[in-house]
C-alpha cells in the first residue's frame, strides 16, 4: 500500500493543524476576512479544521468603504450562507473627514482606513490572535514572515527580532496587549490557491473572472470607476473593456488587467503563461522601495 498525500493536500493538512493550534491556545482569536481568494480558501480550511463543529471564532472585515460593490455583496452572502459571525469595522471618523486616496495619497489613506482601523478593531475586540491570508510568495518582505507573527502592544512588527520558528511548534505566549498574527497559508503559492479553489469548487468574487467592465484606459492601466472622486483627464470617458481583477482591494487603488479568463482553469492558464505578480496592480505596494515592509512594521497585514 502506498501512502502518498499530494503536496496540495499536505499544505491543507498543515494549515488545518495551524488553525486548530490557534483555536486551542488563544483566548480570543479572530479571522481577518478580506473577501479575496485567499480569504475564501482560508474560510474553507477553517470549516474543515473544526468540522463537525462550527468555526469557533468570528470573522473581521476592515471595510474602507471603497471596496467593490460586488465584494460586499459576496461577503454578506457568504456570511449568511455559512452562518458566520461577521464583524465589520470602518474608520468612520477618518471617512467623515474626507479620507480618500486622491486627497491623502495612497500611503496615508491606507494608514488610516486599513492599518489604524485594523488596530482599533483588534483592540476593541480584545483579540489576541488574528488569522490573515497572506502568503510568503506575495512580496519580498513577506518571504521572511513567520506563521505566528508576533506583534507588540502597538500592533507593530519588528523584523529583526522575530521568534525562531522550528518544526511545527508554534510559540503562542503573549503578554497583555500583545498579539499574534497567524498566517496559515504561508506556504501556499498563488497557483496553489487557484488549484485548490478549482478542486474544492470554492466560490470567489465574480470580479476575478473576465467580463466587460467600464474602465478608464490609461496606457496599459485599467482604472475602475466605482468611486465618483476618481479624477478624469480632459475628454476622458470610460470604455467597456474585457478584463478581470487579479487581486482585490479598494476600487480606486486596484487596477484591472485585460483578460479573457472567465473560468478558474483559464485563470490558471493565464497565470502560468505570463508571470506577473498579483500585487503588481496594487498601487499601494509601489509607493516606495520596501513599502510593504514599512506598512507591516506599522501594523498592517
Amino acid at each position, binding site marked *: 500500500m502506498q*501512502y502518498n498525500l*499530494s*503536496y*496540495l*493536500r499536505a499544505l*491543507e*493538512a*498543515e494549515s*488545518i*493543524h495551524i488553525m*486548530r*493550534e490557534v483555536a*486551542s*491556545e488563544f*483566548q480570543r482569536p479572530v479571522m481577518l476576512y478580506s473577501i479575496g481568494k485567499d480569504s475564501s480558501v482560508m474560510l474553507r480550511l477553517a*470549516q*474543515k479544521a*473544526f*468540522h*463537525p*463543529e462550527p468555526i469557533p471564532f468570528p470573522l473581521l472585515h476592515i471595510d474602507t468603504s471603497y471596496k467593490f460593490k460586488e465584494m460586499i455583496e459576496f461577503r454578506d452572502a457568504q456570511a449568511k450562507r455559512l452562518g458566520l459571525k461577521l464583524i465589520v469595522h470602518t474608520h468612520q471618523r477618518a471617512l467623515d473627514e474626507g479620507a480618500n486616496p486622491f486627497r491623502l495619497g495612497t500611503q496615508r489613506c491606507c494608514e488610516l482606513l486599513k492599518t489604524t482601523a485594523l488596530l482599533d478593531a483588534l483592540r476593541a475586540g480584545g483579540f*489576541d490572535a488574528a488569522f490573515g491570508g497572506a502568503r*510568503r*510568495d506575495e*512580496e*519580498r*518582505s*513577506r*518571504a*521572511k514572515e513567520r506563521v505566528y507573527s508576533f506583534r507588540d502592544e502597538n500592533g507593530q512588527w519588528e*523584523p*529583526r527580532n522575530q521568534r*525562531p*520558528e*522550528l*518544526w511545527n511548534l*508554534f*510559540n*503562542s*505566549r*503573549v*503578554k*497583555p496587549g500583545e498579539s499574534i498574527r497567524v498566517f496559515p497559508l*504561508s*506556504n501556499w*503559492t498563488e*497557483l496553489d490557491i487557484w*488549484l485548490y479553489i*478549482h478542486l474544492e469548487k470554492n466560490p470567489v468574487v465574480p470580479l476575478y473572472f473576465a467580463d466587460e467592465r467600464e474602465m478608464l484606459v490609461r496606457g496599459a492601466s485599467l482604472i475602475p470607476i466605482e468611486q465618483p472622486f476618481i479624477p478624469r483627464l480632459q475628454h476622458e470617458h470610460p470604455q467597456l473593456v474585457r478584463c478581470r481583477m487579479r487581486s482585490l482591494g479598494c476600487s480606486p487603488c486596484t487596477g484591472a488587467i485585460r483578460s479573457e479568463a472567465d473560468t478558474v*482553469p483559464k485563470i*490558471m*492558464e493565464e497565470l*502560468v*503563461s505570463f*508571470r*506577473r*505578480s498579483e500585487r503588481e496592480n496594487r498601487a499601494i505596494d509601489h509607493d516606495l*522601495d520596501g513599502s510593504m*515592509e*514599512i506598512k507591516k512594521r506599522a501594523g498592517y497585514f
Partner: protein
Amino acid sequence: MSTLSLRETDLTTVESFFQQELEKDLLRLVTAGSVDDGKSTLIGRLLYDSQSVYEDQLHAVHRASQTRNNGNLDLSLLTDGLRAEREQGITIDVAYRYFTTHKRKFILADTPGHVQYTRNMATGASNADLAIVLLDARRGIQEQSHRHAYIASLLGITHLVIAINKMDQVAYKEEVFLEIQRQFSEFLDPLAFVEVYWLPMSALEGDNVVERGANMPWFQGPPLLEYLENVDVPSAKTTTPFRFAVQRVVRPHQDFRGYSGQISSGVVYVGSPVKVLPAGPVTIVKSIHTYEGEQSFAFAPMSVTLCLQDEIDISRGDLICSAEAPPQVSRTFAATVIWFGERPLQTSRKYLLKHMSQFTRAEVRSLQHRVNIRTFSPEPCSTLEMNEIGVVEIETAQELFFDPYRESRASGSAILIDPETNFTVGAVIMLGTAGKRSSTQSLEHTPEKDKWRPLTADERAQRFGHRSAVLSLPSRERLAQLLERRLYEQGAQIMVLRRWNDDAAAALEQAGFIVLALDTAAKETVSLPLLPKEDEQAVDKILDLLLAANVLLRIV
C-alpha cells in the same frame, strides 16, 4: 530544465496540467553559506532561470541594480527582502522561496550565514529534507561551513549538497574543487549523511546552477536544479509507528466525541488498536472523520478527527498512538539543545516547553557539555551562550510522550520558551530518557507605574503575574484549596467562590483575580479538561493549562 507551459483553451491539456501539478511531490530544502559565498545570487538565479520570478519584481530589481550595481542585474536583490538587508547587502533572516518545475515543487528556506544568525539556519533546517551548503572556492572551508553541515545533520537532514561556488574566480580549476572536497570529506564522514553531492559552480555566471555551462568540462554530474529534481529523499513518515497528538476534543452533540489532530507519523485504520497516553488503556479506532466524510484509513501528515470505541478521559496534549510500538514516557530526558536566547541557558532557571500539543514547565537539570562543532568533542561548560550547542538533561512538570529525534522529528522535538520575555530560546532535539530528581521556584516583581493614571487590566496583570480568569471546579473543594494556596504563595490574586454570584464574580474579575468557583452555575472563562483524580497532579495540570492559555504570565 523546464518551465510550465500550457496551450491555449485546450481543456484536456488543462485537466492533465492539474493532474500533473497534483502529482508533483514536494522537496523542502535549506541553503546556508557564509556572508559572501554568493547564496542570494545562487537563489536569485534558481528563481530567475526556472522562471519563478514575476516580471514586475524583476523590473524592480533592474531599477535597484541601476543605483547599486552599476547597472548589472544583481540577482541577489530578488531575495534580500528587508530594508536593513538591502542597505547592508547581507541576509539577516530566514526567507522562504517557492518554485516549481515540471517534476517537483520546492520550498526553499534561505538562511543567513553569519554566526549570530545560527538560530535561523536551525529554523530553516528543522523542516528541510535536504541542505545546500555553499563554499567560496577562493576561501575554501570556513568555520561556518562546519557549523552549517553539523546543524543540518543534527536536525535530521540526510542529503547534503556541497556547492563550491565562485569557480570563475579560480579559473575553473579542477584541483581547487578536489582539494576542498578532500579536506571537507574528512569532517563530514562522522556526520553520516546518506548522500553528499559535491558540485563546482559559479552562481554569478550560471555555471552548474540550471544549465551546465561550458566552463567546467571536467565535471560530469548534473547541475543543481537537475539534481534537486531527481534526488530521492524518502520520507519516513508513514513507515514509523502511529503518533497522533490531540489538538482539540470535538463534541458537537451527545453522540459524537472526537479527537482532532494531525497524524505526525504512521498509518491508522478503522479497527486499529491504539494506546492512549497518559490514561494508558488500549482501545480501538471506531471511526475516522474529515470534512469530506468518514474515511477507512488515514496516514501522516493528514489532519483528521478520530473517534474511539471506549470512553476514555482524553484532552489536548494527550497522545493516541500505536498499541504495539508506544513512545517513551518520562518527565526527564536527555537532549541536544541549540541555544537562541540572548541570556545564556541556566540550570537554575525555569522555562516553558512545548512538545507536540503539550505545554509544560521545564527545567534544565544539568548541562553535561558543550559540543565543539569543529571537532565534535565535548567541552565542559556551565552555561550555553547564544548559538552554542550542548547536551542537557531536562525535567518537565508533566510526563512527555516522545521518541528519539532520529526516529521521528515530530515526536522527538521541542522548543524552550523564556517565561519572562516569551522568546523562543532553545531548540530541543530529544535523545532518550534520563534519571529522576526535582526542583524549586522563584518570583520577580514588576515595576511601579505612573500613579496618576487609572489602573488598567493589563497593569494589574503585569503586577500579579496573571490575567483574571474564572475556573469551574465543582465538587473539587480540596483541589481548589490546594490550587489557591499554591498560587497565593506566589503572589497571585486568587479567591475560592463557593456559591456563584454574578456581581461578586464580575467584581473579582475586574480586580484581576483568578476565581475558583465550586458552584455548577459558574460562568467559567477558561474551560478545564477532565482532571486527574489525584489533587496534586490536577494542580500541576491546571497550572500548565493556565500557562498555555496565557492566564499565568510567569511560572509559579
